[in-house]
């Protein structure tokens, strides 16, 4: 069981990661991104749409970390920190807005808000 822990703690990049493994991670992040996208487009509930954007953030973060690991430098991870800040800021704003909209229309349906037209 201990080597499992060791493997887990590859903290200081002793060995460079192969390109093909990188591709695995990239596939996962793209898939997550695609799912987030589909979610955003199909769900009508405002909050769930925001959640889907968060999922897309996550996908981006994963890709960044993967590339960071591949290139053996920490830029990837610092940027994920910033993604977190952005996600947090966005969440705050979006939720405040959602509360406001909900209070106005008693519904979370995105299609109700269509005045800014033509």
């Amino acid at each position: 069981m201990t080597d499992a822990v060791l493997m887990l703690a590859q903290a200081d990049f002793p060995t460079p990661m192969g390109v093909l493994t990188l591709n695995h991670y990239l596939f996962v992040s793209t898939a997550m991104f695609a799912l987030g996208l589909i979610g955003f487009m199909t769900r009508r509930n405002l909050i769930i749409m925001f959640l889907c954007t968060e999922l897309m953030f996550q996908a981006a973060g994963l890709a960044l970390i993967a590339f960071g690991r591949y290139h053996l430098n920490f830029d990837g991870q610092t940027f994920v920190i910033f993604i977190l800040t952005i996600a947090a800021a966005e969440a705050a704003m979006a939720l405040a807005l959602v509360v406001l909209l909900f209070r106005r229309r008693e519904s979370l349906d995105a299609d109700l808000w269509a005045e800014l037209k033509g």
Partner: protein
Amino acid sequence: MNTAIAELPINPLLLYVACVLGAIGVILAMPRKGVSPMVFGGLLAAAAGGLIVLGLTSHAERHAQTPSIFFYIFGLLALGAGLRMITHPKPVYAALYFILTIIASSGLYLLLSAEFMAFALIIIYAGAILITYLFVIMLATLPPSEDDMDALATYDASAREPIVATFAGFTLLAVLTTMLFRGTLSLPVRHGMDSSDAILSKLPGKVEDNLSASLHAAELMTPEEHIARQVDVGRVWIDSARRRVLVSRGENTAGPDQGELVRWVDVPAEMWPADMVGTNVEGVGLNLLADHPMTIEIAGVILLMAMLGATVLARKQVDLEEEAKARQARHLALDVVAEDVG
């Protein structure tokens, strides 16, 4: 530059077929009124995902670059939860599934030896942000009427033009993956870099304190001597290749050419701080502050703005009496011929 099919990490045909399969699966998994083959859709999507991952792994197998087994677990978990999140009609469950995805992806971070980020993700992201989401979901869903406990809000019941959206999404997936896979082939190959030295060379203070304490202890350095350092340039003379240290008596002198004031001291193997390994947190911290100071400032400002915005949006509305507000809302919402309003 269409590289030969052989070197591609995955046979593109396989990729596209899997994508189509995945798309169909997701479509089926979409929430819709009446009986819905959600489960079957989910399985189909999972199968497609698995197919692609298998394709990748089979290729990686030949080059012995398969990621560890945990990758498959966490990857599958993440995608499954993600799918479930977007297809689940109840918003609360969707949020919970999202938390599951976050946990899965923090696992993947660990695999990519980004421990700090993994835990930061769980603490900040899952812990704070998603809990706020849950909080707002609770706040903003109408209490279900007595007769029908699990009545679904109309807007959650069915997806909106799922087919078009899904196909768009999966074309994006197919295209992105093809581009990424082709792109990664042209990445510069990284040879092993002793990342700790890279970090250590930027943490002179840490190394210097450790070494000087042990050297003084072993009297290899007279008390008035100290490890030579050039303050103006910020360089400490520690030659980790031949494990020796330049020791000088004078003031912050220049380099080895100070003649009598300095002498090289070989550091015995066991005294070289073995655990001098830049941990991940130090690396991230150093990179954060050394390479991206400006970005931190901006991040700070963004957060400030977000706070400001949130407070402004959420401040107490002038309390029009309910009835007028509702009427106004109705008037705005429905482009109905203006009936005589009050």
